[in-house]
């Protein structure tokens, strides 16, 4: 037991120099004087700066104004989204009048010379029929306007040159 106490005594003796490492108060004051920033902001200046900051950002802090700004921001974002959507649709591509499309599809079914294909000869033969006899057969009213004239021929001719017919 006594040996153990001696051991502890030795430990406490060894620790003693560490405790002695405390910096003397004078040295601490001198070090502080050297390394501490010398510029001190007076409290009244600090307060004045903070007041100005508060004044500057005060409108942004008000709830109404804040809501208004967010509202506008979302409006702009929505407008941008609409514009982007419009761009993505590529409105520059022209699809042609709907009536033409309808007429073309109708003309594709009309094979004037019954040879199994619609080509320029169908339009040519129809034009000749109209010119020579003033053909009034209603079946040649391709565009359904009640008249048999050059516009019916044009519909057949446009069907003949349509790219939807296939490749070489």
């Amino acid at each position, binding site marked *: 037991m006594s040996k153990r106490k001696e051991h502890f005594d030795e430990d406490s003796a060894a620790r003693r120099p560490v405790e002695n490492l405390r910096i003397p108060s004078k040295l601490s004051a001198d070090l502080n004087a050297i390394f501490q920033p010398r510029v001190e902001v007076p409290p009244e200046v600090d307060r004045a700066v903070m007041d100005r900051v508060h004044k500057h950002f005060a409108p942004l802090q008000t709830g109404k104004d804040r809501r208004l*700004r967010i509202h506008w921001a979302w409006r702009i974002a929505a407008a*941008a989204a609409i514009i982007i959507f419009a761009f993505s649709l590529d409105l520059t591509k022209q699809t042609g009048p709907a009536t033409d499309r309808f007429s073309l599809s109708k003309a594709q079914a009309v094979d004037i010379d019954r040879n199994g294909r619609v080509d320029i000869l169908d339009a040519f033969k129809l034009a*000749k029929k109209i010119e020579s006899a003033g053909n009034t057969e209603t079946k040649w009213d391709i565009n359904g306007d009640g008249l048999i004239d050059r516009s019916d021929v044009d519909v057949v001719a446009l069907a*003949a040159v349509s790219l939807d017919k296939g490749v070489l």
Partner: protein
Amino acid sequence: MTKITPIILAGICLIVPVLAQQSEQDYSTAQSGVRFAPLHIYIDSGNSSLAAYQFELKAAAGQIKIVGVEGGQHKAFKEAPYYDPAALANDRIIIAAFNTGRDLPTDRTRIATIHLQIIGDTEPQYELKLAVAADSDAKEIPAEITFEKGE
């Protein structure tokens, strides 16, 4: 910060596609030379008078865009022929025309001129096929179709 974020995002969404599109156009124009050239189409119907024709043209090699079509040399085919408007800005076109009159061309005649935009340095190759040629009685006639590159 939450108020500015949508504005910034909207700005980016607007500007980026526009700039991308513009730079793409600039790049394609700068990278590959773009030029315009006409392509004259001729049909030789021999002794037969040519009253109607239809042919198809497409690019077999190279990059082209059809930008316009005009009529031919003879009075009978002076007017712009029939073609699908969808062929413009495309590399394939079907062209046709007819004339019911009596004054019709024979032998070799220029029936149409196609105006092309040629993109890149590769000289385009064309595939030209005559679908039909007919006389004034609408009877099919043998004919040869050729083209000449214009300047």
